[in-house]
């Protein structure tokens, strides 16, 4: 295991940002720290980097106890949400910064910077200032700068949070491909479950200073540990007191075994899908999503009596555990 976090606690004044967090982060993988704003995921990342000191607990990076080490000595690459570009330095000088601090020979620095700028597709922008780059380009520059020092771990704090939707999607794919090339242990913070599911090998769900669940995207999506994880990873609706995904609810026009009887209250068109709201006799508002084709085939209309059931094998939060 690359990063071992044990019993890390952090207070900001009276506010408990992290509550005795234990976590192991695997070597050479991309791990996402996923959770709502203010849940403590950025604090955890900053503690791993050494930008914040824990009030209690230990951080071990690649077998070395890093708890007391200042950020300068941890050899971590850190990428900030708002890029933190050195505004007065050119793109090449930004990337060279860490190497120059380490007093590497000039020709080695030049070669390494050229390599990295090629890697992040900024070769022709080497002599521009950060202010002459777009947001996506600035973030790629920041990534090259962090990779230049050959960090033990690469830490990214909401790296795509300040970018518009299209660029964010491109950078996500690109980060995934980049990681397949350089294989550095990577931890990134996000509040976007789609981003985490798409990019990460492993996801750590963090809320209110605690780890809710750790697992691969499939594990989390198919077997969420509790209602919180289930609802955070995607849309949910409540059927018979249990959370299920709206697209995992089946509608039938004839009575089915264990089906909940109800009346169609609303039919909404959502892009290629149809969202049907059913008021069950138990008094639940159940949301069902289906393709427009299947809605048309069934002939769903407002006021109709229908029977609802969860699809066989549909994931739901493990019984007995709730956030």
């Amino acid at each position, binding site marked *: 295991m690359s990063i071992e976090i044990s019993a890390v606690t952090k207070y900001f004044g009276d506010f408990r940002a992290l509550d005795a967090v234990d976590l192991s982060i695997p070597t050479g993988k991309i791990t996402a720290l996923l959770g709502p704003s203010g849940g403590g995921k950025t604090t955890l990342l900053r503690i791993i980097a050494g930008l914040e000191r824990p009030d209690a607990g230990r951080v071990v990076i690649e077998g070395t106890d890093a708890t007391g080490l200042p950020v300068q*000595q941890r050899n971590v690459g850190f990428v900030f949400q708002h890029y933190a570009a050195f505004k007065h330095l050119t793109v090449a000088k930004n990337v060279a910064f860490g190497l120059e601090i380490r007093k590497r020979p000039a020709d080695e620095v030049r070669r390494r910077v050229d390599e990295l700028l090629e890697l992040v597709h900024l070769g022709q922008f080497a002599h521009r200032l950060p202010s002459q780059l777009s947001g996506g380009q600035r973030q790629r520059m920041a990534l090259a700068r962090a990779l230049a020092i050959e960090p033990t771990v690469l830490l990214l704090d909401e790296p795509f949070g300040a970018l518009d939707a299209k660029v964010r999607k491109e950078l996500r794919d690109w980060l995934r491909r980049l990681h397949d090339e350089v294989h550095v242990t990577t931890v990134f913070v996000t509040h976007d479950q789609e981003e985490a599911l798409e990019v990460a090998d492993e996801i750590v769900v963090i809320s209110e200073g605690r780890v809710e669940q750790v697992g691969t995207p499939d594990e989390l999506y198919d077997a969420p540990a509790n209602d919180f994880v289930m609802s955070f990873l995607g849309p949910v609706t409540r059927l018979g007191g249990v959370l299920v995904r709206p697209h995992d609810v089946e509608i039938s026009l004839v009575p089915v075994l264990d089906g909940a009887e109800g009346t169609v209250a609303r039919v909404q068109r959502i892009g290629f899908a149809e969202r049907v709201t059913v008021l069950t006799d138990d008094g639940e508002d159940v949301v069902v999503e289906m393709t427009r084709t299947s809605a048309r085939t069934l002939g769903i209309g407002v006021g109709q009596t229908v029977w609802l059931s969860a699809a066989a094998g549909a994931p739901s939060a493990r019984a007995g555990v709730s956030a």
Partner: protein
Amino acid sequence: MGESRRRPFTYVLRCAVVGYLLLLVVWPLVLVVTHAFEGGAGTVLGLFAEPGTLAALRLTALAAVLATAINLVFGVAISLVLVRVQFPGKRILSALVDLPLAVSPVVVGLALMLVYSGRTGWFGPTLESWGLTVIFSTPGIVMATAFVSLPLVVREVVPVLHEIGTEQEQAAASLGASGTQTFWRITLPSIKWAVVYGVVLTLARSLGEFGAVKVVSGNVLGQTRTATLAVEEMYLNFDQQGAYAIAFLLASVSVLAILIVSVLRSRAERTERKATP
């Protein structure tokens, strides 16, 4: 309706402002220039050849440069402490920095006398026994000048430090830079222009300091008489020509300083605007 009523009003307002500046600033300054050159440029040059005047100008330049150098170092240090460090009593320190702007320079001079006076001061006799005379000597003049111009660098640098934030410094630290390396390579280049403005303003203010210096200097011709004191002395001794000549020189340096600042400022703003896509 609003248009027809606003027009005469803006016109009147504009005239009032221009008239005010003319009567209070421009006309008197123009008169200083014309009086200085009343006897022709030759007389003015002749005055500057006098040893007493030269010594006064040299002393003023020395005091101004030293005070500016001191306030450059301490001004940047105080700014960093005020913005980057959290500690109780920070607001009091911040208010203390502004104090020299509010307190009359004469009071500053008297206060320095109380502490550093060679015979009666609180700390002065000790320094005197070590062979360092502060009051009625150059160190006192430099101190008085530094005191009154203290806030100028701080007030320029503090807002810029707030604006640039700490992320660039954190990024530098994560790349292995020590505190000193981060300061020289990242922080200082980011606040460069603010420091330049602060220094120019401090220099201009220091050249013109009168009240505090008058109290602590002793005003000895050729030794502790600064340019501003020389202006007063000459004026009181009916040497109006000389007084106006030195006054002209002091005013020109200050105007030049303000011009440099405004040119630098507009250039910095222009490059910033050009750089923002």
